[in-house]
């Protein structure tokens, strides 16, 4: 009997020693918790259920065009589908773009810039104050034609103005009408981030000088497969070539000759910093370029 007691005592002692090594009580409601069968086999079949293929949307771009004669817009309002750039530093009326009606009933956009402020970037580049844009997409075709009409008014102080197409923030091809009303063509730029040298694109002079109080139509063409950009002026239905050449290096990936051409997706009108005044816009259109 004594031996039996001693045996039981020894067993209990061993149990006690074993228990003193254990952790303190952890679970507040241990009776409500049951051990997961997957604790030790988290990746096993029956525990882990891999995702099925996720239902992702297509990344193929959707192409769309522009056809703006502004005739359905509201007078004295900014036109729909257009973005007029401003930041906190701009005065309330520092830049304006609003619909106006001509004597014959035609609606067009009156544009004003005070020339005082500009976007912060690119720094050290001739960044314009007035930036008025709308977008299109011809990323599959990679070619297209854009039109726009400009009127330089005499009834109010006029301004230098440019209009054309851009790849994002970088000009592709545009016409620049100076305060002397001479017409230049600008290809590419600015691509300041890359060169660090104030690269503002390349500007070409033309033989044309505009007259105030007349509508002038311009046409821009681009074709990435031909590496070609063009600008035309249309006067009395007669089209005159202003410039024809290759895409500027700033329209290529990393501004490298070997880089892929990046096609335009923005129709852009700008007026420069440090000059103030008005100009008018009408008939903006982007259409597909045939074969």
């Amino acid at each position: 009997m004594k031996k039996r007691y001693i045996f039981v005592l020894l067993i209990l002692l061993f149990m006690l020693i074993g228990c003193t090594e254990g952790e303190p009580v952890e679970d507040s409601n241990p009776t409500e918790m049951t051990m997961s069968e997957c604790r030790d086999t988290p990746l096993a079949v029956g525990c882990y259920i891999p995702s099925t293929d996720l239902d992702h949307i297509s990344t193929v771009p959707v192409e769309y065009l522009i056809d703006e004669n502004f005739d359905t817009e509201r007078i004295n309002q900014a036109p729909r589908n257009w973005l007029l750039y401003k930041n906190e530093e701009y005065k309330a009326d520092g830049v304006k773009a609003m619909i106006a009606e001509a004597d014959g009933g035609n609606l067009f956009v009156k544009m004003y810039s005070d020339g005082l402020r500009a976007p912060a970037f690119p720094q050290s580049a001739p960044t314009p104050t007035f930036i008025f844009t709308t977008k299109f997409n011809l990323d599959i075709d990679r070619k297209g034609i854009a039109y726009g009409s400009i009127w330089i008014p005499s009834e109010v102080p006029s301004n230098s103005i440019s209009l054309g197409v851009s790849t994002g923030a970088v000009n592709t091809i545009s016409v620049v009408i100076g305060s002397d009303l001479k017409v230049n063509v600008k290809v590419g730029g600015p691509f300041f981030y890359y060169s660090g040298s104030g690269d503002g694109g390349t500007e070409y002079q033309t033989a044309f000088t505009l007259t105030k109080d007349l509508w002038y139509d311009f046409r821009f063409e681009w074709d990435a497969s031909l590496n070609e950009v063009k600008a035309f002026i249309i006067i009395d239905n007669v089209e005159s070539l202003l410039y024809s050449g290759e895409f500027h290096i700033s329209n290529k990936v990393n501004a490298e000759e070997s880089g892929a051409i990046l096609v335009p997706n923005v129709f852009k009108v700008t007026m420069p910093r440090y000059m103030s005044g008005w100009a008018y816009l009408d008939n903006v259109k982007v259409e597909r370029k045939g074969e």
Partner: protein
Amino acid sequence: MKKMLSILLILLTGLLTLPALNLKAADTLVYTDSDYARLHAVIQHVDNVLKYGHEYNEDTKLIPDAINTLTGEPARWTFPNRAQVPYADIANQQNFFRTLVALSNVTGSDKYKNEAVDIMGEFMTNYQSPNGLFYWGGHRAINLDTLEVQSTEGPNGPHELKNMMPFYELMMEVDEERTLKFMRQLWTAHFYWSTTDMNRHGSYSTAYDTNVFGQSIPGDVIVMDNDGNPIIPQDSPGLLPFVNSATDLAYAAFALSNHTFDTVPAEWAKYLMRQYNLASNPITGMTVYQFKSTLVSKSPIECSDPAYTNSGCGDRVARQFRDFGVIAREPNVAWKNTQAIYVDNILMLLEAADKYGVSHFADWARDYMEGYLEYAYIRVDGRNKIIPMFIDGTVTYGYVVPEVGYFGPSNMRIDYVDMPTTYLLPILRTILQQDNDADKEKLWSYFRDIVYTFGIGDIGELGGATPNLNIDTSIDDPFALMTMVELYDETKNPAYLEVARTIGNNIVREKFHRGFFVQSEIMLYSRLDQPDTLALLTLDAVLRGIDLDDMPFYLADSGYIHGYLLSDDGVVEDRSYTQNVIYTKTIFDWE
């Protein structure tokens, strides 16, 4: 004798049966199906990241920094001319590497760690500059279309690490030689031994120096004036010693010393960190973002436009906040970039104190945190806030900035700043690394208020006694989760663990969508550097009884890319960060 034995038997039986009632699970916590559900979500996320990350370009093991959860494609950096670059910036993926290793630890499967090794191995083999720097960080990434190095700053963007704190343990395992070379060159490229200037930017053309730490350590840059105040030199020629870059330099040096048993790099790290300590305000204890101000190197004409914020025009705070007098200097701002000072740097200091024996760093951390919380912490409308001020306590709250500058537009009113949950971990870890309770009490008091205000409940007295936690808290935050896990780990009070489980469940419910962890249901990108999955695995490890010291440790999630890009409107150029332009996109922004 028989009677005595009987009494003894009864006593022993009583002793054993009382605790044994509860100790059926004493050797391990109960790991429930709910616990497994969280792990299941993490595994699915990781598997999807690996699947879709690898799928994009099968010629590489590299994966993108973030995945578009609507398309499964990589996030892309869009340059001003629309050029789009799907990017892998390995510096920005450190929490994912930690997640992979942690996942192998908790699942017992090597496959996740092997993925980490494979990705890191390809990167280290192919994308280390001859001078030792890796092509990663703030201005360099790998283009996943071409597998070439892409710069976002210019054709030759510099090397820049700001609080990225690479997973050196893994890198050492993958390629020790390349890792050591990088750690040494990090100092050669960023630290100017002759002038003690430090530049956040390092050049890839700086030659590798085999004797990088061979200089003798110079005198301190910071000396005191007659009143005992630090004199901040204003002679830095554009080489601004931002603490976020210094944190990475110091961390690399400590890791290097720890690995090589050469104490000299660690001494340099201590020297560098000491400059920030010396530049701290002696009254408030608050510390600085940089210990030098910049030298004016540009002409007055160039700098006449306040919107031109190049540091060559002088101290940018002095320009924009000149109404505040001499305290208005970039080093002294205590309402912006404070994450770099009071979170990332503190976590590194504490890591160095804990792992590398630099015990006085824990004292510095306490001084900084106590000073900052005492002066700048405030609870407003039931929310944790920071009072905007300079480090001497001069409050800028309510000030309307008269002109545009580096810190924002004109007419900007300086207001309280939300205190993010990221502050929880540095405060807690600072407390836990103090030796005496007396040194813990002040911070614990703030910590208790802050945790309560985040909606987690009352953590109780110092040491974890008598908590009254909000078991149904709605917070879904990884830092709150890691805080509760580490509190539990320290105190073994199960109340913290129960709240941790609630927070973990909240994270999965609120952030696991479309097969990925995202910041919230509507956010477009799943970012690899997000800390949620690592936090969930930390909880999982504790529930399995894995020692937290055996788990990859959270240090930062500050990875970013900075450079020129197309702004959100798609028509003007901007210079910004992935965090501001890309990771803010929602599923409704996707065209």
